[in-house]
């Protein structure tokens, strides 16, 4: 066993882990942050996306010990301290960007990373950025629309 120390959602945390413990396991099982989902565990679906030092990472494809000394943000760290939704989260709600919600934490984390890099993406850029995020429910249209709306661009009103 070894100890990993990192900053998760602004808080310094330490946990006992094995070499093989994945980042997603320590987040969900060690720290109880179950907002990060495991859809495939084979690097395909993106439900487990978190930010490490601000960049998107599949938490099922990174060892916990690789995060030693790094800053991790999960979906629980996105809303304001008072619970106010971030613009991306609010737009997902407004534009029906989710149905069952399983992919949503990963979608929101990917979208947050995209808008930080590219504050006014085109529809094509949004779709391209979401290549690693799979949704079985929505058909993606409303997810893309929500992200465009969150970036302050005009989209048609929700139906």
């Amino acid at each position, binding site marked *: 066993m*070894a100890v990993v120390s990192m900053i998760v959602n602004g808080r310094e945390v330490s946990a006992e882990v*094995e*070499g*093989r413990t*994945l980042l997603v396991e320590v987040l969900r099982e060690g720290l109880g942050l179950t907002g990060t989902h495991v859809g495939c*565990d*084979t*690097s395909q679906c*993106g439900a487990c*996306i978190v930010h*490490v030092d601000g*960049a*998107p*990472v*599949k938490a099922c*494809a*990174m*060892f916990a*010990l*690789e995060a*030693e000394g790094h800053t991790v943000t999960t979906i629980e760290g996105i809303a304001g301290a008072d619970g106010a939704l971030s613009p991306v989260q609010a737009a997902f709600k407004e534009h029906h960007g989710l149905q069952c919600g399983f992919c949503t934490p990963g979608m929101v984390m*990917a979208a947050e*990373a*995209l808008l930080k890099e590219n504050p006014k993406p085109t529809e094509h850029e949004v779709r391209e*950025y*979401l*290549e*690693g*995020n799979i949704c079985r429910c929505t058909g993606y249209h409303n997810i893309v629309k929500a992200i465009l709306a969150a970036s302050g661009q005009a989209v048609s009103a929700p139906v």
Partner: protein
Amino acid sequence: MYDFEFVRPTSLEAAIAALAEEDAQALGGGQTLIPSLKARLAMPSVLVSLAGIAEMTGVCRDDEGRVCIGGATTHAVVAREAAAHFPALAALAGQIGDPAVRTRGTIGGSLANNDPSACYPPAALGTGAEIITNRRSIGADDFFQGMFATALDEGEIITEVRFPVAEKAAYVKFAQPASRFALVGVFAARMPDGVRVAVTGASEDGVFRWTEAEEALSREWSPEALTGLAPGSDGMIGDLHASPEYRAHLVGVVTRRAVEAAG
């Protein structure tokens, strides 16, 4: 996944010492290795992470004008930092997988793995890059030795890759839509010392140079020079995504698109 000891050295010297242990294995970004460990396809006793070695990351230019990329540099960093030096190479890195894969995956891991559908092997072969290890320098023409096979020995790691810059070049990938890997990908380059065309995704022998196209493009660098040209389908990969005949046809189409994109 079997357990292992995880170490993260901060110098190349310490990494090489750690890799000398029995059944030790290098860990780049883990984007290939972690899934294979989950499937119990590998059973290292020690994993040596290369991510903390500052001298193995980053992009720069050497005295000969080559773009030098540290072996542990991620695809995301190459996409950003090589853009001013070698746009075709940066664009290739920016098309690998998806953004999360690019945050972690590294050039050294990609070349060492030599997946027959990977994107970096055709860039290395298509420019005649030099692959530097902790022991020697290996020319791209000697480095790739068939699917998942390279000239690397046990415990040998890629510390740097030096790419000569092309006068004109482009990488065009016909992506397999589920995996994002190349169904067929072509790196076509007009180098100062001749034309090189390297193809990934197509051959059962892994990445290869398509010499007929190189000859045709040496006579005239234009998509038209390739009219009617396609490699034979013998030895092309056939799987549920595409037949050998379809892949051979795509090589012709994608090469023409690459030359067109290169301008």
